[in-house]
């Protein structure tokens, strides 16, 4: 199983043209291997020659590009903080570390509780290490490399090559032994810690004489946090593994999924933003409203989910909807005032009530439905309270995040919101109701026909025109809305592919069971459709992630702008665009590549396409 996830074997297996090296075959004599794979015929040898020349030339050129005389890598090293979190205040940085710690802990918990155990065969490890070592050695030998870096490359190259070859030689049957995930995690944590403590990075002063405390061997401002972060990553994993037998797995998994959906919003609004709560108001207004909605709404919903309730349930739901709509109409005409969040809560309650018959059933099902409602109320009210309180953070620009963080935040929200939107549109497009179908089709095809950049321009420069006087939307919110609407069309197309793959028999079976249309859609069709569309959706997510770089063009201070503009405008690093761009490429690449690898193994795990 694990071997299937092995990259090399994947290539060869999928390639189907070099069937002589199966993952299970033992390591061959290098000379023989080269004969088979590089010089099997005259043409093949010629090809090898050409590719040696091309690859060597490219590597030479690339090393020259990276170590160009005019490149000042200090520009990146000094500005690491600016690149990742822009102007988030240094004295509040503990919040960033806290958030990162939470995320890393959640990663570990997820790995432990969802049994994510990627492992690597020792053979693969050895080959990778020696490959890395060999490349490093070649870079060290190339004349383009500056003498200082040359030594480092040669040492690292020799070490890796020796370790890789040594492993391959020392271990019997390396293709049958595997390095386990905990070992890899531990190694990763230790190397990060070692890197933080041993590698001197950065400079200690800049333009106006102020000192930035980064780099050097002894400075604790990044080293200690990184050590703690790695301790969390590794420690939580082992702890979770230890306590796993004692805990019920299902609720923990539900909790983790909830965290991944709502956690980032919590971190952004309640941790990173540092809201000042007016506790008087929280106690007198916010909490009573939330409890009221949870209790009263819960009771109504519990009653509404009673099976065979009949007409009266629908009447109540419609009445609730009426009240909810009336609240908005009242706001429109100024009849009576009301907290905006109560209006929203009424509307959500009405929607829950309308959907209630779909979820009607035994007591446990009803309790679960009420539980979902209470969770939505709690989470929603909590977040609204957190969002609406003022921030105490002394941050230079109103978007309190910038750099890579804002790219990640935009990515997270766009995916989060465009997914349900896309699902609804996909359902509408495949529905039998012609107006819905036409509207969804027109929307999807329209959006898919135009470039993202025009959508972003439209929203960033024109959205204030479309709003009534006095209403305003911040630039970033406008960008987010535009990007979400754009992304939803693509998500819809991917889900539609899945929907179409659901067999007719499933529909007929659902009808035979007497399910209503919505029950059939929610419980039978969508789950199957989503499972089929997961690979495409992950591909879409990667594309969305990469295209967050486009918000650079509409003026947001994202990763790319900080690297390409902000840093290059500092007097010390005027014109250092190239290093910034190379760094940005590297970071984007690491993230996108990991996502695509993860999606590939997910595909294998789900067995999509093999069923």
């Amino acid at each position, binding site marked *: 199983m694990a071997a299937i996830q092995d990259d090399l074997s994947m290539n060869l297996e999928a390639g189907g043209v070099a069937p002589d090296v199966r993952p299970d075959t033992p390591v061959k004599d290098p000379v023989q291997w080269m004969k088979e794979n590089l010089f099997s015929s005259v043409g093949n040898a010629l090809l090898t020659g050409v590719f040696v020349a091309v690859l060597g030339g490219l590597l030479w050129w690339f090393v020259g590009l990276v170590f160009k005389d005019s490149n000042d890598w200090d520009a990146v090293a000094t500005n690491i903080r*600016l690149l990742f979190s*822009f*102007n*988030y205040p*240094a004295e509040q940085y503990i919040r960033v570390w806290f958030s990162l710690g939470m995320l890393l802990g959640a990663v570990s918990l997820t790995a432990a509780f969802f049994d994510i155990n990627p492992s690597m065969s020792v053979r693969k490890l050895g080959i990778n290490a020696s490959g890395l070592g060999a490349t490093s050695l070649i870079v060290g030998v190339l004349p383009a490399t500056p003498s200082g870096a040359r030594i480092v490359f040669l040492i690292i190259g020799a070490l890796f090559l020796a370790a890789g070859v040594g492993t391959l030689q020392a271990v019997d049957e390396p293709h049958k032994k595997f390095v386990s995930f905990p070992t890899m995690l531990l190694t990763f944590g230790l190397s990060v810690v070692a890197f933080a403590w041993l590698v001197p990075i950065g400079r200690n002063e*800049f333009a*106006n004489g*102020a000192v*930035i405390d980064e780099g050097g061997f002894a400075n604790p401002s990044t080293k200690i946090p990184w050590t703690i972060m790695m301790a969390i990553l590794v420690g939580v994993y082992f702890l979770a593994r230890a306590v796993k037998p004692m805990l019920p797995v299902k609720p923990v998994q539900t909790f983790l999924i909830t965290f991944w959906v709502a956690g980032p919003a919590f971190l*952004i609004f309640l941790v990173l933003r540092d809201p000042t709560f*007016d506790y008087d*108001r929280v106690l007198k207004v916010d909490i009573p409203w939330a409890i009221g909605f949870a209790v009263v709404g819960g009771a109504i919903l519990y009653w509404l989910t009673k099976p065979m309730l009949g007409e009266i349930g629908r009447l109540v739901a419609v009445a609730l909807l009426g009240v909810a709509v009336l609240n908005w109409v009242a*706001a*429109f*005409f*100024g009849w*009576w*005032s*009301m*907290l*905006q*969040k109560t209006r929203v809560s009424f509307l959500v309650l009405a929607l829950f009530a309308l959907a209630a018959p779909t979820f009607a059933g035994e007591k446990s099902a009803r309790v679960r439905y009420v539980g979902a409602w209470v969770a939505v109320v709690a989470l929603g009210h909590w*977040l609204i309270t957190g*969002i*609406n*309180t*003022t*921030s105490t953070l002394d*941050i*230079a*620009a*109103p*978007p*309190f*995040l910038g750099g890579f963080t804002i790219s990640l935040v*935009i990515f997270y929200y766009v995916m989060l919101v465009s997914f349900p939107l896309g699902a609804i549109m996909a359902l509408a497009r495949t529905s039998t109701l012609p107006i819905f179908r036409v509207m969804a089709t027109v929307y999807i095809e329209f959006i898919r026909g135009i470039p993202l950049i025009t959508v972003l321009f439209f929203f*960033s*420069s024109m959205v*204030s025109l479309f709003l*009534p*006087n*006095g*209403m*305003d*939307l*911040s*630039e*970033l*919110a406008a960008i*987010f*809305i535009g990007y979400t609407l754009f992304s939803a069309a693509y998500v819809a197309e991917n889900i539609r592919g899945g929907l179409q793959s659901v067999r007719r028999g499933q529909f007929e079976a659902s009808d035979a069971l007497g399910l209503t249309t919505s029950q059939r859609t929610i419980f039978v069709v969508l789950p199957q459709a989503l499972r089929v569309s997961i690979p495409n959706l992950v591909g879409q997510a990667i594309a969305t992630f990469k295209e967050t770089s486009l918000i650079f063009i509409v003026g947001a201070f994202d990763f790319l702008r900080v690297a*390409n*503009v*902000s840093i290059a*405008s*500092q*007097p010390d690093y*005027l*014109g250092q*665009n190239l290093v910034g761009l190379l760094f940005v490429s590297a970071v984007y690449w690491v993230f996108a590549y990991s996502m695509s690898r993860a999606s590939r193994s997910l595909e294998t795990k789900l067995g999509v396409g093999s069923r």
Partner: protein
Amino acid sequence: MTATLKRRLALLAVLSLFAAACSSGDDATDNADTDSTEASDDGDSGDSGDDGDSGDSGDSDDSGDTVDLAQGGSVLETVKARGTLNCGVSGAAVAFSFTQADGSVTGIDADYCRAVAAAVLGDANAVNFVALTAAERFTAVAAGDVDLLMRNSTWTQSRDTDVGMDFGPTTYYDGQQLMGRASDGFSGSSAVSEIDGAVVCTNAGTTTETNIAELAGTLGINITLNTFEDFNIVTENFIAGSCDIITTDGSALVGRKAEQQPEGEEWVIFPATPISKEPLGPVYGQNDSIWADVVNWTVYATIIADEYGVGKADVDAALAGDAPEMVRLLGGEGELQTAMGLPADAFYQVISQMGNYSEMFEANLGPVGLVREGSANAGWQDGGLIYAPPAR
């Protein structure tokens, strides 16, 4: 059959009525609805309004405040209530405003933002810098996203009249110039007509783009004009040789030449008389004279202090000194500042925290090689244009 037909017709009629009601309702309530929404929200939530729209991405946390208060009175009240000044800057203009590695913003534009904050709030650090691109800056002022825009913006007739904003006193008299290579045969006295056939690069969305295009048309010369959002790329391409000539405000060219001219190459800035007038100064929302006075007199205070030679170091001496204008300005006597809605010591705070015009100039523009002497930015006694009305 007839019964069902009737029912269908009835349904159609109801629908059309509904549609009609919707459309007529929209007209009648265009303006009424927003006001009432705002009012209703104010009524029950004092702090920042539980507006649903602020939840979208979280950065609009205090925009609700801005809107609510701005409708009531001057921006001055809004700023005081908020406790910070939202100041729009470039964030990427050397010597004017750029972001440092620790996230702070430095430059003369940034310093004037701080000066206004010192005057209004007594604390030069109570500034939220909002980095804006050239294209979006004026929209930000008109929409009230920023209280003050200090983003080397040229004061022109069309901008002043057209887009919902007003201009304050000029803090830097700039002019568009061109930069070429001495190896291409340029000298400081070269004329613009000599750039015939050149690839000219400049930044997009600014007056410089229009200026050079118009000038080329007038002179009847043929140029290729490339525009970039970001002047770094312009300079990069000039260094690489993909651009033969770059053009922008003279101050930026001087800065770029000082910092980026490669060894063995000679860059030349010409013509001696700039091809355009680019007075750069503060920009604020239209028709708010209380706020306009605050910003204008903060600038004037730095200039008057400069005329008297009063800087950061000797401001206390000047407060106790015998120049009545200076004493009045620093709040020692009279009610000039309080009448404006500022604390009496507002300009004392400005000078003591930020210094006078000359100090700010030297600290930010001096390092890149810009000098006051002999330029339009010299004081009026020295033949320059920096002049302030009397404080009395």
